[in-house]
């Protein structure tokens, strides 16, 4: 049986489950944010420093903040149905445009970080499993414990101190050389140089997780009967490790990686602040400080969509990796 129909089934199931999930998330988020004290008018008035009762009332009625809560929710849902995320009072922009500017930066950062985490994590984990109980295993496990326990912002700052300040190899912040008009290969290299440090500091925590997970999964798979069969065929240890052990160990790791997409989005707020990376995380942070709930709701909706999408991708990946899934 080919894997395509199985994958199609997995996809259909995911989409059907996603619809009620998204609606639930929107409504829940809306009420949660209403619990927070203050609104955009308070903050803007406070920043202007000379607002009267009347101007504040005018602002509230202009942004629809004076309506009853349920009406506000219905208005927001009505916007959503018309594929609009609403209007930001603070930035005087469509929220979708605002997010559209920031989204690519965060997505590339996350994709890079995930790629780094998986690549290094799988390599270290395989090494640890290969040398289980011996010196390399102990050393790597100490390092992974270190990465796991040290907070991301501190690692970010230390990386800046080492690679930007002391060694001067890499830029310390931003997402590209200001005023440069590099294009093609040179442009990509320039962008990549700016991305190395933020992506690495975001990734290190997950490197630790994946390394430990890979180690455990590989040790478990290594003792299974089919690995002995593979050796009995006369395959070399390297081929057995990659084709038989790692291939099976990947199944639990993909599940975890999918669950981490949401966590990475959270970690991005800190890393983007440290490296002044213009991304969604910082936008979310600013939106909270400015009580700009429309923007925040938009970001939260988008994040939940992203997590659902990531899970769908993991589901498909799982179906492809493990032929036992999706039959029935």
């Amino acid at each position, binding site marked *: 049986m080919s894997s395509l129909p199985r994958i199609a089934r997995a996809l259909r199931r995911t989409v059907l489950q996603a619809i009620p999930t998204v609606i639930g998330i929107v409504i829940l988020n809306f009420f949660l944010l209403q619990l927070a004290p203050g609104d955009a008018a308070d903050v803007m008035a406070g920043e202007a420093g000379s607002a009267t009762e009347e101007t504040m009332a005018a602002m509230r009625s202009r942004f629809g903040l004076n309506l009853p809560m349920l009406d506000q929710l219905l208005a927001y849902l009505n916007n959503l149905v018309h594929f609009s995320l609403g209007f930001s009072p603070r930035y005087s922009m469509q929220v979708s445009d605002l997010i559209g500017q920031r989204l690519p930066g965060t997505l590339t950062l996350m994709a890079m970080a995930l790629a780094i985490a998986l690549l290094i994590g799988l390599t270290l984990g395989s090494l640890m499993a290969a040398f289980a109980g011996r010196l390399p295993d102990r050393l790597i496990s100490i390092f992974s414990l270190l990465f796991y326990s040290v907070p991301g912002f501190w690692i970010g700052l230390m990386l800046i101190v080492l690679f930007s300040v002391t060694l001067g190899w890499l830029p310390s912040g931003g997402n590209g050389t200001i005023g440069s008009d590099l294009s093609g290969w040179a442009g990509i290299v320039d962008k990549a140089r700016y991305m190395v440090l933020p992506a690495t500091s975001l990734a290190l925590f997950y490197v630790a997780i994946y390394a430990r997970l890979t180690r455990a999964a590989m040790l478990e798979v290594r003792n299974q009967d089919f690995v002995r069969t593979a*050796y*009995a065929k006369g*395959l070399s240890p390297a081929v057995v490790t990659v084709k038989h052990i790692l291939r099976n160990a990947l199944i639990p790791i993909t599940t975890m990686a999918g669950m981490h997409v949401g966590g990475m989005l959270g970690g991005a707020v800190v890393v983007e602040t440290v490296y002044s990376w213009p991304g969604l995380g910082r936008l979310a942070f600013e939106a909270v400080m400015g009580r700009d709930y429309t923007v925040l709701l938009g970001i939260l909706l988008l994040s939940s969509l992203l997590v659902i999408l990531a899970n769908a991708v993991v589901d498909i990946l799982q179906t492809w990796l493990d032929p036992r899934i999706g039959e029935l």
Partner: protein
Amino acid sequence: MNAIATPAAFTPAPGNGHRLLEVEDLTIRFGTSDPVKHLSFSIDRGETVAVVGESGSGKSLSALALMRLLPRNARIPNGSIRFEGTNLLDLKDRQMRAVRGRDIAMIFQEPMTSLNPVATIGAQIVEVLRLHEKLSRKAARQRAIELLDLVKIPDPAQRVDDYPHQLSGGQRQRVMIAIAVACKPKLLIADEPTTALDATIQAQILELLDELRRKLSMGLLLITHDLGLVSRWSDRVVVMYHGDKLEELATADLYAPERHPYTKGLTQASIRLDEEVHYTAQTLAEVKVARSPDGRNIYDVRQPERRSLPTPATDREQLLVVKDLSVTYQGGSKASKALDGASLSLAKGETLGIVGESGSGKSTLSKAIMRLVNAQEGSIVFQGRDISRLGPQQLQPVRRDLQMIFQDPFGALNPRKTLREILEAPLIVHGVSNPAERRQRLAETFEHVRLPSLVADRYPHEFSGGQRQRIGIARALILRPSLVICDEPVSALDVSIQAQILNLLVDLKTSLGLSYLFISHDLAVVQYISDRVIVMKDARIVEESDHRTIWRSPKTDYTRALIAAANDKGGRPLAPRPQLHAAAL
């Protein structure tokens, strides 16, 4: 008592040109213990040699040593393994890899887990062909299909892209054989190749192995604990116990009188369907091995005294009456019927045997009676009361009278609890709050299952498989139940232990007045212990009869097929056993 310490010598005759494998003085060492000591044997081209032994005899380790696949912490301090004149122990890793899979191939016991679950069976055959024969992808795939045809997988061109989970256990073992014979090896090692399979499939797999051995003129090393299998399929037998080779003999001599006492014990302790042994007529011989002061093993075969059985009353009170019981499992979109309208009855003091192949619904039936799964239809009248619709609260007192003994003596006991905790837990649940009384019940139960009561504060891992099964029996008996459901209680045990446990179960039944529902796929065991027998197939009860009629004049074809498979494992005709028990009944 007939004790012996020196193995009988046996020198094989054939000339050296035929010699394929010569193992000499092989010792395998883990730390300070030697699970295999000074083992020597040889295999000629085209010959089948069986290594027989119980668990812990070192037979599987010896097989792995031939492939140099021993666990990392094992060492070989002395000995040689000569394959066509070359000592395999001297080869470099790279050279040894060229031998594995090409000259010497191996199949394993567990067909369910021996194939990589995420690769197609075709890919797993192609892998070995591409490695050793350097075939192109296309040619290798073509060969893989031919090989699947050779091992008699139907529709090989279609099945080649199947994943292992889409195949049955027997088919998976065929795929394993296809992988093993792909490069036409000169020696095939089969480590318990049929132990995990149903009787009807066992015969087919062994027939296939034997046919391939002749076609490809391979040497075959058969590692097994099953003497019935050995006597039909091998030319010579090596008997091992605890790392020692006790004797080597021609298969025809296996049942001859002047054998090593341990071999004799094994042949007597293993029961055969065609001998019609029944518990009312005789006890089973038990093999006892003791260590003499000078460190040698003393082997002893003993047949416990015949027990006096109460004469069965003609019309006894019914303990359990099951009517039209059906269980349907909901799995995703489709429902599968695991039990379909099963009806049975069991009188007090009676043993009802249930036989059937895997998937026939015997375990579901027992779980439904225990109310561990819910039956959608039907009634279970136990001690005059319908328990099929009782809630958990009402079931609690019923469970005291309804206990179960499980198959796996290793998995059924919580490893983090001492025997005392394991055994007292059910007493506490059922309201025996007085510690003195609990201690007394514990001592009494230990006595029943013949364990010394000073072991009560030890943990399960400190016991052997047979002892653990005694603990499992003790756990079931401590509540003084009236009905005990035994789900394959001796299937995971060695032949000699199996005889001890069966003797124990019969003794307990008589002394405590128990009734058993005895489930097993092993017909000979069911024949021995049952008063009546039920045969199950595809979730239904297909036949029911008393213990004599069912074996002598079975009514259905299915029962006939089961008996044929158990009686005749194929191969050569079985040598009759001389001087053994007078025919039962």
